[in-house]
């Protein structure tokens, strides 16, 4: 691999890791507060991509389409919280897990019915499909550049939110100790709703970026990114948001460089390598890299 190729793969890994990170943040945030593994998070991503697809037909500028699509995912996230998760709040972990699996499967099937299982071409704008020449033989796709930029901006925004605003600090407090948070006067419902809003924004954006990356969208497209994001959060330490982001980038880079270095015959096994890595991390550090919570919560 020469320098140019390395640079290209590096940015590619950064870009893939960024998408995983956006998805993983939502998972970690909702888990941190509700102790719920929201498998339906992948369907929020999928619906974000489909919303983009349909809104783009209107001929509106892509940025407007993207904002509308993200607003749509926020509404979906809010409805999901209200209809499926609020009534089951406080139920045993297994019941929560089954609820989220149920929501995930229901949304997948509804999407197959509504949109058909046929993959569709994602309406990525021409502008960002172009290659950008960084010099020194490094060529980067515009999609990757946009992906990394958008993800970093969102993460910076999130960091400001959780450190500088009262709602953000309340969210961190609730994730650490729900009872104490209630005794402070924090309205837990507000915090949960905020977590779903933020998670849905991130998942909606991830859906658009994933659509642009892969080029096609279909009703089951949420499964792989949410699975990878789940692995990332476990590697990083479940419930820890910095951990989830770290895990996501480890996974993104690991995947890209494995494919680049492995002989062609083995590249189709890359997911096997991902899960081997997961098992190795968990053997050495059951609580994940940045995790401090008890591993039985996973």
């Amino acid at each position, binding site marked *: 691999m020469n320098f140019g190729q390395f640079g290209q793969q590096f940015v590619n890994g950064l870009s893939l890791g960024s998408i995983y990170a956006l998805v993983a943040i939502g998972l970690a945030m909702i888990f941190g507060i509700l102790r719920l593994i929201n498998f339906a998070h992948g369907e929020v991503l999928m619906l974000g991509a489909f919303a983009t697809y349909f809104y783009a037909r209107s001929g509106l500028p892509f940025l407007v389409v993207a904002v509308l699509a993200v607003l749509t995912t926020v509404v979906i996230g809010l409805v999901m919280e209200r209809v499926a998760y609020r009534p089951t709040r406080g139920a045993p972990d297994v019941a929560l897990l089954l609820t989220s699996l149920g929501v995930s499967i229901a949304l997948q099937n509804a999407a197959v019915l509504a949109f058909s299982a046929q993959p569709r071409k994602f309406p990525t704008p021409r502008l960002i499909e172009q290659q950008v020449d960084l010099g020194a033989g490094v060529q980067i796709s515009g999609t990757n550049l946009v992906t990394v930029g958008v993800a970093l901006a969102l993460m910076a925004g999130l960091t400001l939110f959780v450190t500088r605003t009262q709602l953000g*600090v309340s969210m*961190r407090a609730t994730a650490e100790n729900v009872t104490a948070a*209630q*005794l*402070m*006067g924090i*309205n837990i419902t507000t915090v949960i709703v905020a977590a779903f809003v933020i998670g849905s924004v991130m998942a909606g954006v991830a859906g658009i970026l994933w659509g642009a990356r892969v080029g096609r969208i279909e009703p089951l497209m949420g499964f792989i990114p949410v699975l990878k994001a789940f692995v990332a959060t476990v590697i990083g330490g479940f419930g820890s948001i910095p951990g989830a982001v770290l895990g996501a980038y480890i996974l993104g880079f690991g995947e890209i460089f494995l494919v680049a270095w492995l002989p062609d015959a083995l590249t189709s096994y890359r997911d096997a390598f991902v899960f081997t890595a997961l098992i190795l991390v968990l053997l050495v550090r059951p609580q994940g890299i940045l995790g401090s919570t008890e591993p039985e919560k996973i």
Partner: protein
Amino acid sequence: MLILEDVHVAYGAIRAVKGISLEVQDRELVALVGSNGAGKTTTLRAVSGLFRPRPGSIRYDGTDLTKLAPHEIVARGISQSPEGRQIFGSLTVRENLMLGAVRRKDRAKLGDDLDRIFDLFPVLKERIGQAGGTLSGGEQQMLAIGRALMARPRLLLLDEPSLGLAPLLVQRIFDVVARLKAEGVTILLVEQNARKALEVADRGYVLETGRIVLQGPAAELAANPEVERAYLGG
């Protein structure tokens, strides 16, 4: 005025509180004492809305608290420094204190209130940017009380504020409790340290396995031979 009437609370099959009736008048300091597992913490948690009494009534200034969520109870001026401190370990001392004030509407006064807390517990000022989890046990206890005070409560619930502290610190905490009372804060104080609690309190209730077995003016309770034998180590 806080009035509990025939309050029952159970954890599944375990009946922790079996028909407690008590009241705390405005500006009064009432001590709730009793041995381990008597139901003191459960009672305070029920007042804060973490548990619903079944059956039983909890009223504060005419409002039925049993219908309110915990954050609505805080909004009515009732805050709690819980047993075991329950500090947010990953949040700074300042963040912990400011969370105590989430329900406050008069946000312009928060700076003055911070100063007041630092006046009561100067060490917290030195630790302002430090993560709550890195504080010593005693410092965490001061933070827990300071955090509850940031709500500017009209009724303050204190659950074992002196637990596990060195004698000097215990004295300091009780001094602060006495000072708060002098400032007009109504206090319901749960304590293992019955002697000290009854020293500062106006009235007291003695709880035993979920029931109130004795009540009266604090001085009378302290002089009661039964209380002396069971709780004051006499």
